[in-house]
């Protein structure tokens, strides 16, 4: 079987002033006709750069320095733009990650589809419109006429990605490169888009090179998988084989980093840590390599028994493991620490002076919930369901329209300095949540002084050092700026900033959504450790049901501004779950059982 695409010894360099970054170092890859090959790896592994080099779409100054890319026997490396355009679209189609920015904001969908149809199919303007209509129909858009007249901003993310698929598909390519096609989409939409992609390419026998970081997506879609790390491919094979019995330790670590839905039960519900398999393989500790601030060489020397884990005084882990604080802090036993009762939040748009009608959007609608002391309460919902707004209301960051929010019996809106210290936030994107121009030590110390936790600079510095130490960064990092840290380290700094104040409640707003799976695993473990050591309560907002189920004791599901149900994490699979919860559950793509029938 001759391959559609053959990549041989590909090297790609990014020249920087005074330095060269070798993004891709000798990648060999073969995509066979009609197959779905997944290229999986963490951010910075070079998978997207590899994909971009195939069509000559490398950004900026990046250059292919060696290797060959052959499409149906034609060498693509070194071709001028004009000759490459023969293959672009017609031979190889491409779908990009972000459907929001990948469509031209100034032209209608009909115009963009029409332009592409006329370029590749040599049809008239009217025929091109008809082609566009047919394709919108094929990608499952029910009202193609309206969508043809729409601008990209008038469509949802899922709709836009369907349009992208139509754009890439209508020229009838032999190979489709999909670069993280569902990463920017909601979980419930992800599966629909992937299935659509598989159906369409299956019908036409188009081969797919799917770039992703999500093993659930790999398992759901691909017949073969290639695992990439630091610019090279470490393992290639049949998907079922690689996922079931990975040969390379790195693959194993990656897979073990991902919380699987239902894994909570096998972990017993009390000893919940990820990367538990790492001890059985060679000493591959991803956390210590890509995210290496810990002074000790191995952050998690003996993952399953917890005895040796807590060297710090004050932790309660000194006693036997079977009686960890999680057991004592049985969720039902705790008193409520945060009580949200009948809270609503309206946002107003338009009105006098804008020339538009005044309109009110209800982001949070009559939500009542209480978070008990010592538990981890998970709040989940699709984007736009109001979960982040509720998180901001909970700490009084936004004024509420109606309802009451009490923290430990006192209204948060009237919270003084002492009370405010006791609930702290960790936000999703540590890059923007930290001030880029202030040393991280100062960012941790300022609230300490401001909220009266430290009486002087010296004490503040001491507490800052201790907080950094607790999150696995050494106190010496206090003098650095946020840009000097990796994504995972920055999130550690955010956590340090919050816990330095010795709060009772941490409001975690998607704390790991922007992180790679291995980094996510270390941060989740860190959060679970800190909770035990510092006796914390978490309100954990997320959109990944597997993470929420793994970490949390109780789960609340938000849907269109309302909290539709609350249940113990053990009861996630109970028969009487609400439809919206079921939709979230169905959207989870498990790694374990590949469902693909392709190949």
């Amino acid at each position, binding site marked *: 079987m001759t391959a559609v695409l053959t990549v041989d010894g590909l090297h790609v360099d990014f020249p920087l002033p005074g330095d060269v970054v070798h993004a891709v170092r000798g990648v060999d890859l073969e995509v066979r006709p009609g197959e779905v090959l997944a290229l999986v790896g963490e951010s910075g592994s070079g998978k997207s750069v590899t994909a971009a080099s195939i*069509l000559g*779409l490398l*950004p*900026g100054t990046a250059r292919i320095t060696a290797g060959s890319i052959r499409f149906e026997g034609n060498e693509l490396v070194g071709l001028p*733009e*004009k000759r490459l*355009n*023969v*293959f*672009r*679209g*017609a031979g190889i*189609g*491409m779908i*990009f990650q*972000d459907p929001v*920015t*990948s*469509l*031209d*904001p*100034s*032209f209608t969908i009909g115009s963009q589809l029409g*332009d*592409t149809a006329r*370029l*590749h199919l040599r049809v008239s303007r009217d025929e091109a419109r008809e082609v566009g209509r047919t394709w919108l129909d094929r990608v499952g858009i029910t009202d193609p006429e309206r969508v043809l007249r729409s*601008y990209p*901003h*008038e469509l949802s993310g899922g709709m836009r990605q369907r349009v*992208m698929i139509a*754009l*890439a598909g209508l*020229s009838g390519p032999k190979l489709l490169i999909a670069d993280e096609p569902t990463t920017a989409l909601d979980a419930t939409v992800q599966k629909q888009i992937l299935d659509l992609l598989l159906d369409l390419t299956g019908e036409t026998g188009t081969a797919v090179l799917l770039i992703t970081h999500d093993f659930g997506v790999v398992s759901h879609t691909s017949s073969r998988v290639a695992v990439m790390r630091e610019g090279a491919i470490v393992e290639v094979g049949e998907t079922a084989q690689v996922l079931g019995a990975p040969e390379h330790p790195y693959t194993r670590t990656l897979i073990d980093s991902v919380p699987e839905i239902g894994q909570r039960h096998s972990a017993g519900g009390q000893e919940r840590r990820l990367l538990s398999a790492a001890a059985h393989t060679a000493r591959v500790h991803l956390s210590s390599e890509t995210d290496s601030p810990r002074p000790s060489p191995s952050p998690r020397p003996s993952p399953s028994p917890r005895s040796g884990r807590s060297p710090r005084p004050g932790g309660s882990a000194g006693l036997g493991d079977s009686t960890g604080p999680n057991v004592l802090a049985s969720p039902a036993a705790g008193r409520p620490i945060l009580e949200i009762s009948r809270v609503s939040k309206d946002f107003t748009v338009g009105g006098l002076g804008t*020339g*538009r009608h005044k309109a009110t959007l209800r982001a949070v609608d009559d939500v009542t919930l209480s978070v008990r002391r010592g538990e981890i309460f998970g709040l989940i919902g699709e984007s736009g369901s109001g979960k982040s707004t509720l998180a901001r209301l909970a700490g009084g960051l936004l004024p509420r329209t109606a309802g009451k929010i009490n923290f430990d019996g006192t209204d948060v809106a009237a919270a003084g300095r002492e009370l405010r210290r006791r609930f702290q936030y960790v936000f999703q994107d540590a890059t923007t949540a930290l001030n880029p121009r202030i040393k991280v030590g100062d960012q941790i110390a300022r609230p300490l002084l401001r909220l009266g936790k430290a009486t002087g600079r010296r004490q503040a510095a001491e507490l800052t050092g201790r907080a950094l130490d607790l999150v696995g960064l050494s106190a010496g990092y206090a003098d650095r700026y946020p840009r000097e840290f990796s994504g995972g380290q920055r999130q550690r700094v955010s956590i340090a900033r919050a816990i330095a104040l010795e709060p009772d409640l941490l409001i975690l707003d998607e704390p790991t959504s922007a992180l790679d799976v291995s980094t996510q695993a270390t941060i989740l473990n860190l959060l679970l450790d800190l909770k035990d050591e510092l006796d914390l309560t978490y309100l954990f907002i997320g959109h990944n049901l597997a993470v929420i189920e793994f970490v949390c004791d109780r789960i609340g599901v938000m849907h269109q501004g309302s909290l539709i149900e609350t249940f113990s994490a053990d009861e996630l699979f109970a028969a009487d779950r609400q439809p919206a919860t079921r939709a979230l559950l169905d959207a989870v793509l498990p790694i374990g059982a590949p469902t693909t029938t392709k190949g």
Partner: protein
Amino acid sequence: MTRQILWRLVNLVPLLFVISLLVFFISQAGPADPIKDVLSQKMSAEQIEQIRQAYGLDQTAWSQYLHWLRDMFTNGGGISLSVRSPVSGIVYPAFLNTLILGAATTVVTVVLGVLIGFAAGIRHGRPADRAAMLFVQIGSNLPIYWFGLIIIWLTAVRWNWLPAGGMHDLRGDGGFGDLLLHLIAPAFAASLVSMLIVARFVRAAVIESAQSDYIRTYRSQGFGRAAILGKHIGRNILPPIVNTTGLTVGSVITGVVFVETIFSWPGLGSVLLNAIAGSDYPVIQSGILLVAVVFVVVNLITDVLLDLLNPRLRHA
């Protein structure tokens, strides 16, 4: 959309009122005394007082303002203190000439600014781009009057291609072609700074658009460079072009005032200079008010155009 435009028009009324207040009271606050400047030293105190009364200068500032406002609507802006004829007869013809020069300047600004910016933007980082940016850097720091004199020296004195000044050839028929010939040099001189500002913004917009995800999408579909540059980048840089052009109209107008003097253009600039020298308040106030109105109207047009160019606002 229509609703938004109407709303912007309604907003103009209070804005113009505030502008008229500012124009009137700021010039009132000046140190010059029109009577002392206009009349001879020999007049007695009673005579001066008489004249003050005749011109209403003895009244309170507020009633003077109301008077002036009424004159603006009914009396052609009142009577000039130095020429003793209605202000409108002095200011309006000059204003029209200034508008002609301003419009020509704007056209040169947009055409050359976009050309330079586009040419530099699509060669981002290459020698041609760096050379263009150096030119922009130097050019936008040149004093307009000096630049104007150089242009006159080159085009009129040295090569004798263009007239050295004025609006019409005195011996000619005063036709449109003659006017255009007289416009070239002053419009070019007056547009220098704003043209280079526009060029800078267009260059940035071209670079941003060229690196955008949606242009990458077009490239991945095999669209040729010409189609991408002409249609898609071209369309997406229109908003910044309109925006900067609207913003630079301010510097165009101030530039025009200088340039009029150098090129002996019979516009508002020279009228205002004479009026200031003679403390002719009615003329100063009317002239400044007209300039302010131009500002406001240009801003309005800019805003409406930007709304029209943005699909998000157009369909709102």
